[in-house]
């Protein structure tokens, strides 16, 4: 549904006569066009709300006219011209809005005197600036993710709400509040300079990564994977990589997402319960996607100190290229986690490193590291910690302790499939206890 491959002339294709079908196929193009159109309009008028309203009106007009009069030769230019006309109409009708737009334009010229985009040439791509506005550090992380999906992903507020399993009214309120802050605190629409980029880019990458992880492993609810969100995140990461090709971390992020997504078909069993790496059927991994991801991981780690996404991509690449768990290059994975811990220290990274150490040096070595981590309050309700402890205890033959740890993990897990997986592991540990 979300994030299908970009198509350029869908409405003109095929003898589509059913108006609902035409509408649906035209709507699919707009998902791709929406972000670009919106960004150009924000650049032109400086006001996100006005840009959204006029973009929506132009798309609505296209949905009405195109099925009858045919798709224009330059659909993008048609949409932009129509949207601009609607925006100008709105400004003429609304004196307060006119005043605000005038002030915004004067201030924009003062901050960054640049020639206005020329509509008659090919459409400029202003989406990069929109990415930086949506993921501005003055907004909360949740707002950044929601705005990025809404503005760049072109999801409706209802779709964003569904994606995060919150009521539509809650999401609508969050988006309205975030857009009001952008307007009233005057968060600018601009691409940060080269000197600011190291501070600002991580926020943009984090927003896209959060969309992906939410799609990959829903933090709550009945379903474990929501692939449409993961694919939307990959689409956004691709756009970012295209717009910022020289930034190695954008390559790292795209590479990481592809390398994880390549395992999507084997991550869960037919009953929706997670399947761990050692039990996944590696023949069903997406080889072309792994190939693309590995190339990106290499780009991300070449030519300078590595960043967190490049390192995570390299770790994912080692897993994806290994024939099985035993044949995985665990020493190299531990070495990469060592660097990752220095670059981006976090208790979750330390936990993953401990698991890799257990694979390299045996379960006892990993368990010692996990026991140190158990004191960290940030991991207190993180179910992968007791789950990892349980697994190592089980492998050490301490089945009763393993069962205790699995029980803790079951209590902490947020989704039903995760709980079910852990309950099965718990049953195995309990059965082993009886054999003891």
């Amino acid at each position: 549904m979300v994030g299908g491959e970009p198509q350029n002339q869908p409405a003109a294709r095929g003898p589509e006569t059913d108006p609902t079908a035409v509408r649906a196929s035209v709507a699919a193009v707009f998902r791709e066009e929406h972000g670009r159109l919106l960004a150009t309009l924000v650049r032109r008028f400086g006001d996100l709300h006005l840009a959204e309203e006029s973009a929506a009106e132009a798309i609505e007009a296209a949905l009405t006219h195109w099925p009858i009069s045919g798709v224009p030769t330059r659909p993008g230019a048609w949409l932009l011209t129509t949207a601009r006309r609607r925006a100008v109409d709105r400004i003429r009708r609304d004196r307060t809005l006119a005043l605000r737009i005038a002030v915004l334009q004067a201030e924009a010229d003062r901050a960054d005197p640049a020639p206005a985009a020329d509509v008659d040439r090919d459409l400029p791509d202003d989406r990069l600036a929109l990415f930086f506005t949506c993921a501005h550090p003055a907004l909360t992380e949740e707002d950044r993710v929601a705005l990025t999906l809404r503005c760049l992903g072109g999801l409706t507020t209802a779709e964003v709400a569904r994606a995060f399993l919150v009521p539509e009214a809650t999401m609508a309120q969050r988006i309205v509040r975030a857009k009001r802050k952008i307007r009233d605190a005057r968060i600018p629409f601009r691409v940060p300079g080269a000197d600011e980029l190291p501070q600002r880019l991580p926020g943009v990458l984090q927003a896209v990564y959060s969309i992906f992880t939410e799609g990959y492993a829903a933090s709550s609810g009945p379903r474990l994977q929501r692939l449409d969100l993961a694919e939307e995140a990959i689409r956004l990461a691709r756009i970012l990589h295209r717009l910022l090709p020289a930034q190695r971390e954008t390559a790292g992020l795209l590479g990481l997402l592809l390398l994880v997504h390549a395992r999507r078909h084997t991550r869960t069993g037919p009953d929706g319960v997670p399947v761990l790496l050692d039990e996944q059927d590696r023949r069903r991994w997406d080889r072309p996607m792994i190939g693309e991801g590995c190339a990106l991981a290499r780009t991300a780690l070449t030519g300078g100190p590595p960043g967190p996404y490049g390192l995570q991509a390299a770790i994912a690449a080692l897993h994806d290229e290994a024939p099985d768990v035993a044949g995985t290059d665990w020493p190299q994975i531990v070495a990469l986690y060592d660097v990752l811990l220095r670059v981006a220290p976090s208790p979750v990274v330390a936990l993953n490193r401990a698991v890799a150490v257990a694979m390299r040096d045996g379960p006892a070595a990993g368990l010692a590291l996990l026991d140190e981590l158990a004191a960290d309050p940030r991991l207190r309700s993180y179910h992968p910690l007791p789950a990892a402890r349980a697994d190592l205890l089980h492998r050490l033959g301490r089945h009763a302790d393993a069962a205790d740890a699995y029980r803790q993990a079951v209590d902490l897990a947020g989704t039903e499939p995760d709980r079910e997986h852990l309950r099965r592991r718990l049953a195995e540990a309990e059965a082993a206890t009886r054999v003891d």
Partner: protein
Amino acid sequence: MKYMLLFVSPPTDSPDQPGAQCTVEDWMAYDKQMKDAGIWVSGNALADLTTCTSVKVDADGQRIVTDGPFAESREVLGGYDVIDVPNLDVALDWAARSPGARDGGSVQVRPIAEFGL
């Protein structure tokens, strides 16, 4: 757009107060930078919190004057500047450049409300 930069510092007896403190010279240099850039509108340092007095008027029109507040204020507003800059990014740059953003202090950046816009 006008923004007020509010310079907030932890109480001087706070344990998280680091040793290094910005000097009057640091503030004078910052003041000069803002004026030279043509963005400074107004601003003041505030006298020590021990000189603070609070006033409120109750429903009967009775005026209540109290010394302080002291105890409940974990952070102390030490001064402010109003600057006129094009957008929040520029305002944040000026805030980050101020001596008030260092040594455990922080700067709150608040747009001045523009009615009718």
